[in-house]
Protein backbone atom coordinates (compact mmCIF):
# COMPACT_ATOMS: atom_id res chain seq x y z
CA UNK A 1 0.00 0.00 0.00
CA UNK A 2 2.93 2.29 -0.58
CA UNK A 3 1.06 3.94 -3.46
CA UNK A 4 -1.58 5.40 -1.18
CA UNK A 5 0.91 7.64 0.59
CA UNK A 6 1.47 9.54 -2.63
CA UNK A 7 -1.38 11.83 -3.69
CA UNK A 8 -2.61 10.62 -7.08
CA UNK A 9 -6.11 11.95 -7.55
CA UNK A 10 -6.14 11.57 -11.35
CA UNK A 11 -4.71 8.08 -11.49
CA UNK A 12 -6.72 5.61 -9.45
CA UNK A 13 -4.76 2.58 -8.44
CA UNK A 14 -7.25 0.23 -10.01
CA UNK A 15 -8.41 0.72 -13.57
CA UNK A 16 -11.08 -1.93 -13.29
CA UNK A 17 -12.95 -3.05 -10.19
CA UNK A 18 -15.81 -5.49 -10.09
CA UNK A 19 -17.86 -6.21 -6.99
CA UNK A 20 -20.29 -9.07 -6.57
CA UNK A 21 -20.50 -9.53 -10.31
CA UNK A 22 -22.95 -12.23 -11.39
CA UNK A 23 -23.86 -12.88 -14.99
CA UNK A 24 -26.43 -15.15 -16.59
CA UNK A 25 -26.85 -16.25 -20.18
CA UNK A 26 -30.56 -16.97 -20.05
CA UNK A 27 -30.80 -19.51 -17.20
CA UNK A 28 -27.14 -20.40 -17.23
CA UNK A 29 -25.04 -18.57 -14.67
CA UNK A 30 -21.59 -17.88 -16.09
CA UNK A 31 -20.10 -15.62 -13.38
CA UNK A 32 -20.48 -16.02 -9.61
CA UNK A 33 -19.84 -13.14 -7.27
CA UNK A 34 -16.65 -11.97 -8.94
CA UNK A 35 -14.60 -9.37 -7.05
CA UNK A 36 -11.77 -8.45 -9.37
CA UNK A 37 -9.29 -5.56 -9.20
CA UNK A 38 -7.10 -4.77 -12.17
CA UNK A 39 -4.26 -2.42 -11.37
CA UNK A 40 -3.76 0.54 -13.63
CA UNK A 41 -0.89 0.41 -16.09
CA UNK A 42 -0.18 -3.26 -15.72
CA UNK A 43 -0.62 -6.32 -17.90
CA UNK A 44 -2.98 -8.71 -16.19
CA UNK A 45 -3.69 -12.18 -17.51
CA UNK A 46 -6.93 -14.10 -17.10
CA UNK A 47 -6.40 -17.84 -17.19
CA UNK A 48 -8.51 -20.90 -16.64
CA UNK A 49 -9.97 -23.86 -18.49
CA UNK A 50 -12.50 -23.48 -21.34
CA UNK A 51 -15.90 -22.34 -20.13
CA UNK A 52 -14.59 -20.99 -16.83
CA UNK A 53 -15.99 -17.52 -17.59
CA UNK A 54 -12.78 -15.66 -18.35
CA UNK A 55 -13.97 -14.42 -21.74
CA UNK A 56 -17.35 -13.58 -20.26
CA UNK A 57 -15.70 -11.50 -17.56
CA UNK A 58 -13.54 -9.73 -20.13
CA UNK A 59 -16.49 -9.06 -22.41
CA UNK A 60 -18.64 -7.69 -19.62
CA UNK A 61 -16.12 -4.95 -18.88
CA UNK A 62 -17.04 -3.05 -22.05
CA UNK A 63 -20.56 -4.52 -21.98
CA UNK A 64 -20.06 -6.06 -25.44
CA UNK A 65 -21.39 -9.28 -23.90
CA UNK A 66 -24.85 -7.70 -23.91
CA UNK A 67 -25.00 -7.90 -27.71
CA UNK A 68 -26.36 -11.40 -27.24
CA UNK A 69 -29.58 -9.98 -25.85
CA UNK A 70 -30.33 -12.70 -23.26
CA UNK A 71 -27.68 -11.60 -20.80
CA UNK A 72 -28.49 -10.45 -17.26
CA UNK A 73 -25.98 -8.96 -14.86
CA UNK A 74 -25.96 -8.04 -11.17
CA UNK A 75 -23.18 -6.38 -9.18
CA UNK A 76 -21.00 -3.48 -10.21
CA UNK A 77 -18.13 -2.84 -12.59
CA UNK A 78 -16.15 0.35 -12.12
CA UNK A 79 -13.83 1.39 -14.90
CA UNK A 80 -11.51 4.30 -14.04
CA UNK A 81 -13.76 5.14 -11.15
CA UNK A 82 -17.05 5.18 -13.07
CA UNK A 83 -19.78 2.60 -12.63
CA UNK A 84 -20.33 1.43 -16.22
CA UNK A 85 -23.90 0.39 -15.42
CA UNK A 86 -24.63 3.81 -13.93
CA UNK A 87 -27.64 5.66 -15.30
CA UNK A 88 -25.58 8.76 -16.08
CA UNK A 89 -22.82 6.89 -17.86
CA UNK A 90 -23.04 6.59 -21.59
CA UNK A 91 -22.16 3.23 -23.04
CA UNK A 92 -20.36 4.80 -25.98
CA UNK A 93 -18.15 6.84 -23.63
CA UNK A 94 -17.35 3.65 -21.76
CA UNK A 95 -16.32 1.96 -24.96
CA UNK A 96 -14.21 4.91 -25.95
CA UNK A 97 -12.19 4.39 -22.78
CA UNK A 98 -11.92 0.66 -23.30
CA UNK A 99 -10.44 -0.80 -26.46
CA UNK A 100 -10.96 -4.43 -27.31
CA UNK A 101 -8.93 -6.90 -29.33
CA UNK A 102 -10.62 -10.13 -30.40
CA UNK A 103 -9.52 -13.69 -30.79
CA UNK A 104 -9.73 -13.65 -34.57
CA UNK A 105 -8.33 -10.47 -36.08
CA UNK A 106 -11.40 -8.56 -37.24
CA UNK A 107 -10.37 -5.56 -39.29
CA UNK A 108 -13.39 -3.83 -40.76
CA UNK A 109 -13.96 -4.28 -44.50
CA UNK A 110 -12.40 -0.89 -45.14
CA UNK A 111 -8.98 0.37 -46.10
CA UNK A 112 -6.10 0.25 -43.67
CA UNK A 113 -6.36 4.00 -43.16
CA UNK A 114 -10.12 3.94 -42.57
CA UNK A 115 -9.72 1.14 -40.06
CA UNK A 116 -7.35 3.24 -38.00
CA UNK A 117 -9.62 6.27 -38.21
CA UNK A 118 -12.90 4.43 -37.66
CA UNK A 119 -13.12 4.93 -33.91
CA UNK A 120 -12.13 8.57 -34.17
CA UNK A 121 -14.72 9.27 -36.85
CA UNK A 122 -17.36 7.40 -34.91
CA UNK A 123 -16.85 9.43 -31.79
CA UNK A 124 -16.90 12.83 -33.40
CA UNK A 125 -19.96 12.03 -35.51
CA UNK A 126 -22.47 14.87 -35.41
CA UNK A 127 -19.76 17.26 -34.30
CA UNK A 128 -18.50 18.54 -37.62
CA UNK A 129 -16.56 21.45 -36.25
CA UNK A 130 -14.03 19.18 -34.61
CA UNK A 131 -13.35 17.38 -37.87
CA UNK A 132 -9.57 17.08 -38.10
CA UNK A 133 -7.83 18.15 -41.28
CA UNK A 134 -6.31 15.67 -43.69
CA UNK A 135 -2.86 16.37 -42.30
CA UNK A 136 -3.95 15.73 -38.74
CA UNK A 137 -5.63 12.50 -39.78
CA UNK A 138 -2.53 11.39 -41.66
CA UNK A 139 -0.46 12.13 -38.58
CA UNK A 140 -2.79 10.13 -36.37
CA UNK A 141 -2.66 7.19 -38.76
CA UNK A 142 1.12 7.28 -38.84
CA UNK A 143 1.45 7.56 -35.06
CA UNK A 144 -0.94 4.71 -34.41
CA UNK A 145 0.67 2.42 -36.95
CA UNK A 146 4.14 3.29 -35.67
CA UNK A 147 3.10 2.39 -32.15
CA UNK A 148 2.13 -1.09 -33.29
CA UNK A 149 5.29 -1.43 -35.40
CA UNK A 150 3.32 -1.67 -38.62
CA UNK A 151 4.02 1.68 -40.24
CA UNK A 152 7.04 0.67 -42.33
CA UNK A 153 5.21 -2.30 -43.80
CA UNK A 154 2.02 -0.52 -44.81
CA UNK A 155 2.90 3.13 -45.30
CA UNK A 156 2.75 2.83 -49.08
CA UNK A 157 -0.58 1.04 -49.22
CA UNK A 158 -2.80 2.71 -46.67
CA UNK A 159 -5.66 2.73 -49.17
CA UNK A 160 -5.66 -1.03 -49.62
CA UNK A 161 -8.32 -3.19 -47.97
CA UNK A 162 -7.16 -4.27 -44.53
CA UNK A 163 -8.22 -7.85 -45.30
CA UNK A 164 -5.15 -8.24 -47.55
CA UNK A 165 -2.75 -8.02 -44.61
CA UNK A 166 -1.40 -11.16 -42.98
CA UNK A 167 -3.15 -12.29 -39.80
CA UNK A 168 -0.38 -10.94 -37.62
CA UNK A 169 -0.53 -7.57 -39.38
CA UNK A 170 -4.31 -7.59 -39.13
CA UNK A 171 -4.13 -8.15 -35.40
CA UNK A 172 -1.62 -5.33 -35.04
CA UNK A 173 -3.94 -3.12 -37.07
CA UNK A 174 -6.79 -4.09 -34.75
CA UNK A 175 -4.69 -2.79 -31.87
CA UNK A 176 -3.63 0.30 -33.80
CA UNK A 177 -7.21 1.33 -34.51
CA UNK A 178 -7.95 1.47 -30.77
CA UNK A 179 -5.28 4.06 -30.10
CA UNK A 180 -6.58 7.24 -31.82
CA UNK A 181 -9.49 7.59 -29.37
CA UNK A 182 -6.99 7.35 -26.50
CA UNK A 183 -8.44 4.53 -24.42
CA UNK A 184 -7.05 3.86 -20.95
CA UNK A 185 -7.83 0.17 -20.89
CA UNK A 186 -7.20 -2.52 -23.51
CA UNK A 187 -9.10 -5.80 -23.31
CA UNK A 188 -7.64 -8.67 -25.30
CA UNK A 189 -9.45 -11.93 -25.84
CA UNK A 190 -6.80 -14.51 -26.74
CA UNK A 191 -5.19 -12.06 -29.13
CA UNK A 192 -2.58 -14.50 -30.40
CA UNK A 193 -4.56 -17.70 -30.76
CA UNK A 194 -5.01 -17.27 -34.52
CA UNK A 195 -1.35 -16.41 -35.11
CA UNK A 196 1.72 -18.50 -35.81
CA UNK A 197 4.66 -18.46 -33.36
CA UNK A 198 6.39 -15.52 -35.07
CA UNK A 199 3.18 -13.52 -35.13
CA UNK A 200 2.54 -14.40 -31.51
CA UNK A 201 5.99 -13.23 -30.52
CA UNK A 202 5.53 -9.98 -32.44
CA UNK A 203 2.15 -9.23 -30.89
CA UNK A 204 3.36 -10.16 -27.40
CA UNK A 205 6.27 -7.81 -27.81
CA UNK A 206 3.83 -5.11 -28.87
CA UNK A 207 1.62 -5.73 -25.83
CA UNK A 208 4.64 -5.53 -23.58
CA UNK A 209 5.62 -2.20 -25.12
CA UNK A 210 2.15 -0.79 -24.44
CA UNK A 211 2.09 -1.54 -20.73
CA UNK A 212 2.41 1.44 -18.51
CA UNK A 213 0.57 3.64 -20.97
CA UNK A 214 -2.41 1.31 -20.97
CA UNK A 215 -4.01 -1.02 -18.52
CA UNK A 216 -4.09 -4.33 -20.34
CA UNK A 217 -6.24 -7.33 -19.50
CA UNK A 218 -5.53 -10.46 -21.55
CA UNK A 219 -7.48 -13.67 -21.67
CA UNK A 220 -5.25 -16.52 -22.65
CA UNK A 221 -5.32 -20.26 -22.93
CA UNK A 222 -1.63 -20.46 -23.29
CA UNK A 223 0.14 -20.97 -19.95
CA UNK A 224 3.54 -20.12 -21.37
CA UNK A 225 2.16 -16.89 -22.75
CA UNK A 226 0.54 -15.99 -19.44
CA UNK A 227 3.85 -16.61 -17.77
CA UNK A 228 6.03 -14.56 -20.09
CA UNK A 229 3.65 -11.77 -21.19
CA UNK A 230 1.79 -10.76 -18.01
CA UNK A 231 2.70 -9.12 -14.74
CA UNK A 232 -0.28 -10.32 -12.77
CA UNK A 233 -2.46 -13.31 -13.27
CA UNK A 234 -5.99 -14.22 -12.26
CA UNK A 235 -7.17 -17.80 -12.30
CA UNK A 236 -10.84 -18.57 -12.86
CA UNK A 237 -12.74 -21.81 -12.49
CA UNK A 238 -16.46 -22.54 -12.90
CA UNK A 239 -17.34 -18.87 -13.10
CA UNK A 240 -15.49 -17.92 -9.93
CA UNK A 241 -12.31 -15.96 -9.46
CA UNK A 242 -10.10 -18.37 -7.57
CA UNK A 243 -6.81 -16.60 -7.24
CA UNK A 244 -5.24 -13.32 -8.33
CA UNK A 245 -1.63 -12.48 -7.70
CA UNK A 246 1.69 -11.56 -9.29
CA UNK A 247 2.43 -13.80 -12.25
CA UNK A 248 5.78 -14.82 -10.84
CA UNK A 249 4.17 -15.86 -7.57
CA UNK A 250 1.30 -17.69 -9.16
CA UNK A 251 3.48 -19.88 -11.31
CA UNK A 252 5.94 -20.65 -8.52
CA UNK A 253 3.76 -20.98 -5.46
CA UNK A 254 0.05 -20.90 -6.16
CA UNK A 255 -2.05 -20.70 -3.01
CA UNK A 256 -5.00 -22.66 -4.24
CA UNK A 257 -4.81 -26.36 -5.04
CA UNK A 258 -6.99 -26.06 -8.17
CA UNK A 259 -4.75 -23.28 -9.48
CA UNK A 260 -1.70 -25.45 -8.93
CA UNK A 261 -3.35 -28.40 -10.67
CA UNK A 262 -4.36 -26.28 -13.65
CA UNK A 263 -0.98 -24.66 -14.03
CA UNK A 264 0.71 -28.01 -13.90
CA UNK A 265 -1.63 -29.31 -16.56
CA UNK A 266 -3.52 -31.89 -14.53
CA UNK A 267 -6.78 -30.74 -16.14
CA UNK A 268 -8.14 -28.07 -18.48
Amino acid at each position, binding site marked *: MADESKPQPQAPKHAIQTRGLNLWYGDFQALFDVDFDVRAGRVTGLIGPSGCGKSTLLRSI*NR*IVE*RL*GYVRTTGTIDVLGHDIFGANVEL*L*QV*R*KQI*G*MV*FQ*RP*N*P*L*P*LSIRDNVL*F*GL*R*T*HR*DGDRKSRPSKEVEAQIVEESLRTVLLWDKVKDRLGEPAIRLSLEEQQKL*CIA*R*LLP*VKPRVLLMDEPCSALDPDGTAAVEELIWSLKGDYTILIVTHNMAQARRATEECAFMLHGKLVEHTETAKMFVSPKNQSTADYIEGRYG
Partner: protein
Amino acid sequence: MQHEDVRDFHWYVDKAMASLVFLGGISAIVFIIGIFLFITREGLGFITDGLDLREFFFDPAWRPTSDSNPTYGAFALIAGTASITGLAVLLSIPFSIGAAIYIAEFAQGRTREILKILIELLAAIPSVVWGFIGLSIMNPLIIDMFDVPVGLNILNAGVILALMAAPIMTTIAEDALKAVPDRYREAAEALGATRWQVTLKVVLPAAKHGLMAAVLLGVGRGFGETMAVLMASGHSINVPDSIFDSVRALTATIAAELGETAVGSEHYQALFTLGILLFAVTFIINLTADLVMRGIKRS
Protein backbone atom coordinates in the same frame (compact mmCIF):
# COMPACT_ATOMS: atom_id res chain seq x y z
CA MET B 1 -9.63 -64.44 -61.67
CA GLN B 2 -13.31 -63.87 -61.23
CA HIS B 3 -14.73 -60.68 -59.80
CA GLU B 4 -17.65 -60.93 -57.49
CA ASP B 5 -20.81 -59.37 -58.89
CA VAL B 6 -21.62 -56.45 -56.58
CA ARG B 7 -24.80 -55.47 -58.39
CA ASP B 8 -27.40 -56.23 -55.79
CA PHE B 9 -30.71 -54.49 -55.27
CA HIS B 10 -29.19 -51.48 -53.48
CA TRP B 11 -26.70 -50.99 -56.29
CA TYR B 12 -29.54 -50.67 -58.82
CA VAL B 13 -31.53 -48.34 -56.55
CA ASP B 14 -28.46 -46.18 -56.12
CA LYS B 15 -27.82 -45.98 -59.88
CA ALA B 16 -31.48 -45.30 -60.62
CA MET B 17 -31.68 -42.52 -58.06
CA ALA B 18 -28.43 -40.99 -59.30
CA SER B 19 -29.75 -40.79 -62.86
CA LEU B 20 -33.10 -39.43 -61.65
CA VAL B 21 -31.44 -36.68 -59.66
CA PHE B 22 -29.19 -35.93 -62.62
CA LEU B 23 -32.25 -35.57 -64.86
CA GLY B 24 -33.83 -33.23 -62.33
CA GLY B 25 -30.64 -31.23 -62.24
CA ILE B 26 -30.30 -30.73 -65.98
CA SER B 27 -34.03 -30.28 -66.58
CA ALA B 28 -33.72 -26.56 -65.81
CA ILE B 29 -31.15 -26.20 -68.58
CA VAL B 30 -33.21 -28.31 -70.98
CA PHE B 31 -36.33 -26.28 -70.33
CA ILE B 32 -34.70 -22.90 -70.65
CA ILE B 33 -33.05 -23.87 -73.93
CA GLY B 34 -36.35 -25.35 -75.10
CA ILE B 35 -38.27 -22.19 -74.29
CA PHE B 36 -35.67 -20.04 -75.98
CA LEU B 37 -35.73 -22.20 -79.13
CA PHE B 38 -39.52 -22.13 -79.19
CA ILE B 39 -39.96 -18.38 -78.91
CA THR B 40 -37.10 -17.83 -81.34
CA ARG B 41 -38.65 -20.16 -83.91
CA GLU B 42 -42.05 -18.50 -83.60
CA GLY B 43 -40.60 -15.02 -83.86
CA LEU B 44 -37.85 -15.77 -86.35
CA GLY B 45 -39.96 -15.32 -89.48
CA PHE B 46 -40.65 -11.75 -88.52
CA ILE B 47 -37.09 -11.00 -87.50
CA THR B 48 -35.67 -12.21 -90.82
CA ASP B 49 -38.32 -10.76 -93.16
CA GLY B 50 -40.55 -8.07 -91.81
CA LEU B 51 -38.52 -6.58 -89.00
CA ASP B 52 -37.29 -3.10 -89.48
CA LEU B 53 -34.98 -2.61 -86.47
CA ARG B 54 -35.29 1.14 -86.64
CA GLU B 55 -39.04 0.97 -86.66
CA PHE B 56 -39.13 -1.69 -83.94
CA PHE B 57 -36.96 0.18 -81.46
CA PHE B 58 -37.73 3.82 -82.27
CA ASP B 59 -41.21 4.07 -83.72
CA PRO B 60 -43.92 4.60 -81.11
CA ALA B 61 -46.69 3.34 -83.43
CA TRP B 62 -47.73 -0.21 -82.60
CA ARG B 63 -50.53 -0.78 -85.17
CA PRO B 64 -50.41 -4.46 -85.94
CA THR B 65 -54.09 -4.68 -86.82
CA SER B 66 -54.12 -1.83 -89.33
CA ASP B 67 -55.45 -3.18 -92.66
CA SER B 68 -53.72 -0.75 -94.95
CA ASN B 69 -50.38 -0.25 -93.25
CA PRO B 70 -49.58 -2.33 -90.14
CA THR B 71 -46.61 -0.93 -88.21
CA TYR B 72 -44.68 -2.68 -85.43
CA GLY B 73 -42.99 0.08 -83.48
CA ALA B 74 -42.30 -1.14 -79.96
CA PHE B 75 -40.85 2.10 -78.68
CA ALA B 76 -43.99 3.12 -76.77
CA LEU B 77 -44.25 -0.35 -75.26
CA ILE B 78 -40.61 -0.34 -74.21
CA ALA B 79 -41.11 3.14 -72.75
CA GLY B 80 -44.20 1.90 -70.93
CA THR B 81 -42.44 -1.07 -69.40
CA ALA B 82 -39.36 0.97 -68.55
CA SER B 83 -41.32 3.80 -66.91
CA ILE B 84 -43.46 1.48 -64.80
CA THR B 85 -40.51 -0.67 -63.76
CA GLY B 86 -38.37 2.37 -63.10
CA LEU B 87 -40.96 4.00 -60.87
CA ALA B 88 -41.63 0.69 -59.12
CA VAL B 89 -37.96 0.17 -58.33
CA LEU B 90 -37.54 3.76 -57.15
CA LEU B 91 -40.49 3.36 -54.79
CA SER B 92 -39.49 -0.10 -53.73
CA ILE B 93 -35.81 0.47 -52.90
CA PRO B 94 -36.28 2.57 -49.75
CA PHE B 95 -39.01 0.30 -48.39
CA SER B 96 -37.28 -2.99 -49.18
CA ILE B 97 -33.82 -1.96 -48.09
CA GLY B 98 -35.30 -0.31 -45.00
CA ALA B 99 -37.30 -3.42 -44.16
CA ALA B 100 -34.26 -5.60 -44.75
CA ILE B 101 -32.12 -3.43 -42.47
CA TYR B 102 -34.78 -3.52 -39.76
CA ILE B 103 -35.19 -7.28 -39.96
CA ALA B 104 -31.51 -8.14 -40.24
CA GLU B 105 -30.00 -5.56 -37.88
CA PHE B 106 -32.58 -4.31 -35.42
CA ALA B 107 -35.57 -6.63 -34.99
CA GLN B 108 -35.27 -9.31 -32.35
CA GLY B 109 -36.70 -12.77 -31.85
CA ARG B 110 -40.39 -13.02 -32.51
CA THR B 111 -40.80 -9.65 -34.26
CA ARG B 112 -38.21 -10.72 -36.78
CA GLU B 113 -39.83 -14.10 -37.44
CA ILE B 114 -43.31 -12.62 -37.81
CA LEU B 115 -42.08 -9.95 -40.19
CA LYS B 116 -40.29 -12.48 -42.35
CA ILE B 117 -43.42 -14.62 -42.59
CA LEU B 118 -45.57 -11.60 -43.46
CA ILE B 119 -43.18 -10.49 -46.18
CA GLU B 120 -43.16 -13.95 -47.68
CA LEU B 121 -46.94 -13.89 -47.54
CA LEU B 122 -46.88 -10.65 -49.50
CA ALA B 123 -44.98 -12.49 -52.23
CA ALA B 124 -47.70 -15.15 -52.37
CA ILE B 125 -50.53 -12.81 -53.37
CA PRO B 126 -51.58 -13.66 -56.95
CA SER B 127 -50.80 -10.92 -59.43
CA VAL B 128 -54.41 -10.71 -60.60
CA VAL B 129 -55.35 -9.70 -57.06
CA TRP B 130 -52.78 -6.93 -57.20
CA GLY B 131 -54.25 -5.87 -60.53
CA PHE B 132 -57.66 -5.87 -58.96
CA ILE B 133 -56.42 -3.61 -56.16
CA GLY B 134 -54.97 -1.29 -58.80
CA LEU B 135 -58.19 -1.21 -60.70
CA SER B 136 -60.69 -0.83 -57.89
CA ILE B 137 -58.81 0.89 -55.04
CA MET B 138 -55.83 2.76 -56.47
CA ASN B 139 -57.70 4.06 -59.51
CA PRO B 140 -60.34 6.16 -57.66
CA LEU B 141 -57.75 7.09 -55.05
CA ILE B 142 -55.39 8.56 -57.64
CA ILE B 143 -58.25 10.40 -59.40
CA ASP B 144 -59.26 11.89 -56.06
CA MET B 145 -55.85 12.76 -54.72
CA PHE B 146 -54.25 14.23 -57.81
CA ASP B 147 -57.33 15.45 -59.63
CA VAL B 148 -56.51 13.64 -62.86
CA PRO B 149 -59.07 12.20 -65.31
CA VAL B 150 -57.70 8.65 -65.35
CA GLY B 151 -56.28 6.73 -62.42
CA LEU B 152 -54.97 3.83 -64.46
CA ASN B 153 -51.48 5.09 -65.25
CA ILE B 154 -47.78 4.77 -64.56
CA LEU B 155 -48.22 5.85 -60.94
CA ASN B 156 -50.85 3.21 -60.31
CA ALA B 157 -48.96 0.38 -61.99
CA GLY B 158 -45.69 1.56 -60.47
CA VAL B 159 -47.06 1.49 -56.92
CA ILE B 160 -48.64 -1.93 -57.44
CA LEU B 161 -45.45 -3.27 -58.97
CA ALA B 162 -43.37 -1.77 -56.16
CA LEU B 163 -45.48 -3.69 -53.66
CA MET B 164 -45.04 -6.84 -55.71
CA ALA B 165 -41.28 -6.46 -56.10
CA ALA B 166 -40.71 -5.48 -52.46
CA PRO B 167 -40.85 -8.99 -50.96
CA ILE B 168 -38.19 -10.47 -53.24
CA MET B 169 -35.99 -7.41 -52.85
CA THR B 170 -36.40 -7.46 -49.08
CA THR B 171 -35.62 -11.15 -48.83
CA ILE B 172 -32.50 -10.97 -51.00
CA ALA B 173 -31.31 -7.77 -49.31
CA GLU B 174 -31.82 -9.33 -45.90
CA ASP B 175 -29.76 -12.35 -46.95
CA ALA B 176 -27.03 -9.99 -48.13
CA LEU B 177 -27.00 -8.18 -44.77
CA LYS B 178 -27.01 -11.43 -42.85
CA ALA B 179 -24.03 -12.63 -44.87
CA VAL B 180 -21.92 -9.82 -43.39
CA PRO B 181 -19.84 -11.57 -40.72
CA ASP B 182 -20.90 -10.71 -37.20
CA ARG B 183 -17.33 -10.01 -36.14
CA TYR B 184 -17.46 -6.79 -38.18
CA ARG B 185 -20.42 -5.60 -36.14
CA GLU B 186 -18.77 -6.69 -32.93
CA ALA B 187 -15.56 -4.89 -33.83
CA ALA B 188 -17.37 -1.68 -34.70
CA GLU B 189 -19.56 -1.80 -31.60
CA ALA B 190 -16.54 -2.38 -29.40
CA LEU B 191 -15.02 0.74 -30.97
CA GLY B 192 -18.00 2.63 -29.65
CA ALA B 193 -20.19 2.81 -32.76
CA THR B 194 -23.95 2.93 -32.30
CA ARG B 195 -26.13 0.33 -34.01
CA TRP B 196 -26.97 2.86 -36.70
CA GLN B 197 -23.34 3.77 -37.27
CA VAL B 198 -22.48 0.09 -37.50
CA THR B 199 -25.20 -0.41 -40.09
CA LEU B 200 -24.37 2.66 -42.12
CA LYS B 201 -20.59 2.54 -42.07
CA VAL B 202 -19.83 -1.15 -41.89
CA VAL B 203 -22.73 -3.43 -42.77
CA LEU B 204 -24.19 -1.59 -45.76
CA PRO B 205 -20.83 -1.05 -47.53
CA ALA B 206 -19.90 -4.68 -46.90
CA ALA B 207 -23.23 -5.86 -48.32
CA LYS B 208 -23.37 -3.50 -51.29
CA HIS B 209 -23.03 -6.20 -53.94
CA GLY B 210 -25.82 -8.25 -52.44
CA LEU B 211 -28.01 -5.17 -52.17
CA MET B 212 -27.35 -4.40 -55.81
CA ALA B 213 -28.34 -7.93 -56.73
CA ALA B 214 -31.54 -7.48 -54.72
CA VAL B 215 -32.40 -4.34 -56.67
CA LEU B 216 -31.60 -6.04 -59.98
CA LEU B 217 -33.83 -8.98 -59.17
CA GLY B 218 -36.56 -6.51 -58.27
CA VAL B 219 -36.09 -4.91 -61.68
CA GLY B 220 -36.31 -8.33 -63.31
CA ARG B 221 -39.47 -9.07 -61.39
CA GLY B 222 -41.04 -5.80 -62.51
CA PHE B 223 -40.00 -6.28 -66.10
CA GLY B 224 -41.68 -9.62 -66.41
CA GLU B 225 -44.88 -8.88 -64.50
CA THR B 226 -47.93 -9.01 -66.76
CA MET B 227 -51.37 -9.26 -65.27
CA ALA B 228 -51.17 -6.57 -62.60
CA VAL B 229 -49.52 -4.19 -65.05
CA LEU B 230 -52.12 -4.91 -67.70
CA MET B 231 -54.90 -4.07 -65.26
CA ALA B 232 -53.37 -1.05 -63.58
CA SER B 233 -51.50 0.76 -66.35
CA GLY B 234 -54.43 1.82 -68.54
CA HIS B 235 -53.10 -0.25 -71.43
CA SER B 236 -52.98 2.56 -73.95
CA ILE B 237 -50.11 2.95 -76.39
CA ASN B 238 -48.41 6.11 -75.41
CA VAL B 239 -44.94 7.54 -74.92
CA PRO B 240 -45.46 9.05 -71.47
CA ASP B 241 -44.34 12.45 -70.32
CA SER B 242 -45.73 12.31 -66.80
CA ILE B 243 -46.49 9.60 -64.27
CA PHE B 244 -50.20 10.33 -64.77
CA ASP B 245 -50.12 9.08 -68.38
CA SER B 246 -51.54 5.71 -69.24
CA VAL B 247 -49.05 3.39 -70.89
CA ARG B 248 -48.87 -0.12 -72.19
CA ALA B 249 -46.25 -2.66 -71.21
CA LEU B 250 -44.50 -5.23 -73.43
CA THR B 251 -45.80 -8.11 -71.37
CA ALA B 252 -49.36 -6.80 -71.31
CA THR B 253 -49.31 -6.39 -75.08
CA ILE B 254 -48.42 -10.04 -75.60
CA ALA B 255 -51.00 -11.21 -73.08
CA ALA B 256 -53.78 -9.10 -74.54
CA GLU B 257 -53.10 -9.68 -78.23
CA LEU B 258 -51.75 -13.18 -78.64
CA GLY B 259 -55.15 -14.83 -78.37
CA GLU B 260 -56.54 -12.63 -81.14
CA THR B 261 -53.95 -13.32 -83.81
CA ALA B 262 -53.75 -16.05 -86.39
CA VAL B 263 -50.95 -18.49 -85.62
CA GLY B 264 -47.99 -17.80 -87.90
CA SER B 265 -49.22 -14.39 -89.06
CA GLU B 266 -46.95 -11.40 -89.07
CA HIS B 267 -48.67 -9.97 -85.99
CA TYR B 268 -48.24 -13.31 -84.19
CA GLN B 269 -44.56 -13.36 -85.04
CA ALA B 270 -44.12 -9.75 -84.00
CA LEU B 271 -45.53 -10.59 -80.56
CA PHE B 272 -42.99 -13.37 -80.26
CA THR B 273 -40.29 -10.89 -81.14
CA LEU B 274 -41.43 -8.84 -78.14
CA GLY B 275 -41.14 -12.09 -76.21
CA ILE B 276 -37.54 -12.54 -77.34
CA LEU B 277 -36.76 -8.99 -76.25
CA LEU B 278 -38.29 -9.59 -72.80
CA PHE B 279 -36.54 -12.90 -72.46
CA ALA B 280 -33.18 -11.41 -73.41
CA VAL B 281 -33.52 -8.47 -71.02
CA THR B 282 -34.69 -10.51 -68.00
CA PHE B 283 -32.00 -13.09 -68.75
CA ILE B 284 -29.30 -10.42 -68.73
CA ILE B 285 -30.67 -8.83 -65.55
CA ASN B 286 -30.81 -12.13 -63.70
CA LEU B 287 -27.41 -13.18 -64.96
CA THR B 288 -25.90 -9.88 -63.82
CA ALA B 289 -27.53 -10.22 -60.40
CA ASP B 290 -26.18 -13.74 -60.12
CA LEU B 291 -22.66 -12.74 -61.14
CA VAL B 292 -22.72 -9.83 -58.71
CA MET B 293 -23.72 -12.16 -55.89
CA ARG B 294 -21.13 -14.76 -56.83
CA GLY B 295 -18.58 -11.97 -56.82
CA ILE B 296 -19.16 -11.34 -53.12
CA LYS B 297 -19.04 -15.00 -52.20
CA ARG B 298 -15.63 -15.34 -53.75
CA SER B 299 -14.09 -12.35 -52.03
